[in-house]
């Protein structure tokens, strides 16, 4: 048995081959038994695929609820937990419509004030530093929670912008295609000598041909008679 420097591929590749057709081709070509064995599917292929045993199995359904991975439990729903759920006090007013700009600026001022108070406490009453540091930490957590709350809004705004850009590009492409079609029609009408006398008449074809090319082919053919005579070109 030959040794290979590389590990064998995972056996799942066999599920994505059409073993029936390979097996029949092997018999027709008269391959050796060794080659025929290589193209035969595994015995369990019929059990895995069911009736259509040469098709790969369906992917597993998406997971809902909570799942465990490497000993940790994760959830499938991405919801930003509130500050109360994290055991923290919310410093800005609660409600659906929060003025993010106003609250962020207020928290920034509060942060500077608390830092100054910390500096004062360290000078006068150094043993009471813990309370001030806790307050500064709480303000920072509130700032970050507000910024995290901005993310869904940012995602929706980005999506709206992408859709608008996509719509604009599609409309431009549509207008360009229509313009090119009109140009092509104009060129073809100009190339047909018989159509020069009937430029104003709308053409009606029997089979609904938009360019009415087939209807004018005979006239075009006759119009081209003599157009490429050598003496004229010379």
């Amino acid at each position, binding site marked *: 048995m030959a040794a290979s420097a590389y590990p064998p591929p995972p056996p799942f590749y066999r599920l994505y081959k059409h073993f029936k057709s390979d097996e029949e081709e092997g018999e027709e070509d008269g391959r050796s038994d060794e080659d025929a064995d290589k193209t035969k599917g595994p015995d369990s292929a019929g059990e895995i695929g069911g009736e259509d045993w040469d098709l790969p199995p369906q992917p597993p359904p998406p997971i809902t609820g909570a799942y465990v991975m490497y000993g940790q439990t994760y959830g499938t729903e991405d919801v930003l937990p509130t500050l109360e759920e994290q055991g923290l006090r919310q410093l800005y007013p609660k409600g659906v419509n929060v003025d993010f*700009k106003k609250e962020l600026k207020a928290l920034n001022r509060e942060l500077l004030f608390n830092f100054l108070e910390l500096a004062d406490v360290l000078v006068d009453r150094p043993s009471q530093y813990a309370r001030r540091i806790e307050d500064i930490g709480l303000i920072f957590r509130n700032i970050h929670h507000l910024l995290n709350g901005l993310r869904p809004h940012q995602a929706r705004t980005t999506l709206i912008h992408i859709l608008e850009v996509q719509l604009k590009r599609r409309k431009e492409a549509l207008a360009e295609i229509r313009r090119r079609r009109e140009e092509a029609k104009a060129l073809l009408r100009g190339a047909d000598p018989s159509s020069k006398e009937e430029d104003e008449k709308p053409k009606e074809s029997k089979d609904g041909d938009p360019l009415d090319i087939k209807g004018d082919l005979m006239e075009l053919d006759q119009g081209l008679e003599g157009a490429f005579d050598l003496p004229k070109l010379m």
Partner: protein
Amino acid sequence: MDVVSQLQDQANHMASLFFNYVGALQRDAPPVRLGDEPPPPPPPPEVDVKGQGKMMATAVVQAAKTFDALVGALPVTAGGEEEQLKRIAELQAENEAVANELQSELSAMEAELAQVREVFHLVVDHCLRKPKVVNAK
């Protein structure tokens, strides 16, 4: 980088400034006299506590001003979540309609292209089959 990420970075930067500056001030602060103790020795001349304090205060205020400027740069939130979702649904419907129109135009254009090619082949065949007329001089 988007404004929200910049705001988050700026908040973290302010936290690191607070942490580092308080630590540096505590480390470099000269000893304080308590009661009837003899006066403490003057600090070494290399450590400029007052100058450092001024520099730190400037940096903290600058960071706070940058944070305020970034908050001001946030786009105005026009409408709530429901209005945004409604706008997204409208845009998706419009996008789909234009996509269908584009697809039908493309199909018609491909059909016309096939017809033009057919005409071109006919013309070329005509030219190739036409006998050459040579004037005998």
